[in-house]
């Protein structure tokens, strides 16, 4: 692979992650190019979220190396952790909004901590982000406990985008959304990627999302990436797990909707 010539947003090499006796990720390697949307599929409990959490530094690794935006995270001391934290945004599966802050304050939080802007501009920017993810100004005054699941996800995305990051990590962004909302969310991610040159790394089970927005998809099985490529290449893959994932009833329904 000519990974040296092309700028990589994320480079994972020989990553091993485990808990106790159990090895979840076994010498896994993966590259995510700058400006692409990479989807990650895998069985439930197969280590997708573990991979994501390891890349963003929430879980310790046993071996291997991870580089994000050319910065090796092994050498990341707590001192420069904030620097990298400004350059990526994370949407957690459950939103992970700060429950004692309103939606607007949640979105403003990273800006308020990192930038020195006037309150007026902060308010405008927060409203802008909220409206960009499809919420209204009034929603901004609600507390997380008062938001529905879909709204929580949207506020979570708005917060992840607050600092106009270079990479956004999305953990199952469309799960729990109705098809219309999920479609709108996909379109939104695509638009943002196109306009901001964003790199998106998303864990998803949503076959529709994979088709609609992902430039490339990686399949995770048995602790390794067993196939990477555009969705067409994955559909043609011989790996038994990938086959059963995409050629199962639900997979077929999407690829051959009329039959």
């Amino acid at each position, binding site marked *: 692979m000519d990974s040296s010539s092309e700028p990589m947003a994320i480079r994972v090499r020989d990553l091993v992650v485990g808990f106790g006796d159990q090895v979840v990720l076994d010498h896994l390697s993966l590259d995510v190019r700058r400006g692409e949307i990479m989807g990650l599929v895998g069985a439930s409990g197969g280590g997708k979220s573990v991979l994501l959490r390891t890349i963003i530094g929430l879980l310790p690794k046993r071996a291997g190396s991870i580089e994000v935006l050319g910065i090796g995270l092994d050498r990341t001391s707590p001192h420069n952790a904030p620097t990298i934290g400004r350059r990526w945004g994370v949407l957690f599966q459950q939103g992970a909004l*700060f*429950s*004692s802050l309103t939606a607007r304050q949640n979105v403003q939080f990273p800006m308020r901590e990192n*930038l*020195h*802007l*006037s309150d007026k*501009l902060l*308010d*405008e*920017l927060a*409203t*802008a*982000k909220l*409206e*960009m993810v499809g919420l*209204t*100004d009034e929603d901004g005054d609600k*507390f*997380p*406990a*008062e938001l529905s699941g879909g709204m929580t996800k949207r506020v979570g995305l708005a917060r992840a*985008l607050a*600092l*106009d990051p270079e990479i956004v990590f999305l953990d199952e962004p469309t799960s729990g959304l109705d098809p219309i909302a999920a479609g709108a969310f996909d379109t939104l991610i695509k*638009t943002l990627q*196109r*306009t*901001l040159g964003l790199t998106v790394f998303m864990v998803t089970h949503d076959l529709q999302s994979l088709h609609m927005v992902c430039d490339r998809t990686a399949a995770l099985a048995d602790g390794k990436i067993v196939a990477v490529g555009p969705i067409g290449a994955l559909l043609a893959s011989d790996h038994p797990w990938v086959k059963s994932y995409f050629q199962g009833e639900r997979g077929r329904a999407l690829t051959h909707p009329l039959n």
Partner: protein
Amino acid sequence: MNLEPALNSTISAERLEFAAVGSWTIAHSEALERLVDAGALQVANTRSMAIDMAGVQELDTLGAWLLERLIRRGRERGQDADFTRLPEHYRSLLDEVRAVNRQPRILRARRNRFISALDNLGRTTVGFKRDILAFVEMFGDLSVTLARILVHPLRFRFISAVHHLNRVGWQAMPIVLLITFLIGCIIAQQGFFHFRKFGADAYVVDMVGILVLRELGVLIVAIMVAGRSGSAYTAELGSMKMREEIDALRTMGFDPVEVLIVPRVLALVVALPILTFFGSLAALYGGGLVAWLYGGMSPEIYIARLREAISVTHFQVGMIKAPFMALVIGVVACSEGLRVKGSAESLGLRTTTSVVKSIFLVIVLDGVFAIFFASIGM
């Protein structure tokens, strides 16, 4: 790619031309805000305006919004305002930003300070009533459920109760013993230090014995249990409430009071007298040790004096109070736990309230018992 941004302006024939250059990104947010604020001041005097975008190297939502704000400022003044020479790849972002912040923000009017103080007072008063109701309701709920369990003993969750008894009783034992032991030592030391001045050394034993058995033993243990186990109950039940576990139980046809609260409260009611008993022993032991090492009173004399000074009544007075205090702590902790709302803040608030309220009620109860025992001559 990371160029200092600038906003150059030229005025020609009543037309204001801005030329935006450099990186209009969040990395330069403070400079950008200053640039656009300065630019906005120039807008006033012209008939039309435009922003030349050809020189923009990078653009993100922050930059796009600031430029859009400048355009809007021009339009508010009735001018023709638009972007010129706009690179194609910025168009969708600017379109996105054009749609936002269209509604003027409704700001809530700030209220008079006096009125809001009154408002606070009113809310607190009503909240106080609600507190009492919540306590009484939980107490009633618990009584009804206990009565039901007496009729159908098989519904009692024995294993759960034993598990909680282990947590609030057995595991609390070391810290309770240590603290009551130290309290016993301190009382004895203070007693010797002050009583010695008028030669009343022997009466220190009376003081330690009566004080520990009647009041301090049970009070210290109850306060510790409220802080240690009551708070744990509130936090557990509160987080179960937050994660909808309690709703899940209810929809499966289980009564949360029966499943969660009865075993916890019963475990406390059993554990507190046991802890009080051993705690009082530890305090008496501590008193004896100080009497021997500091007061120069041999253990034999200490025990003989203790036997004369205290009677089984003193012991009973202390022990009778223990289960009632446990009941109050348990009911307060559980009712506060179930009042937790969605936020982490409310969990913290309820846990604090639970501890403060149960310690307060334990002391009030102790006072009530003091009056009661005095009037029946115990």
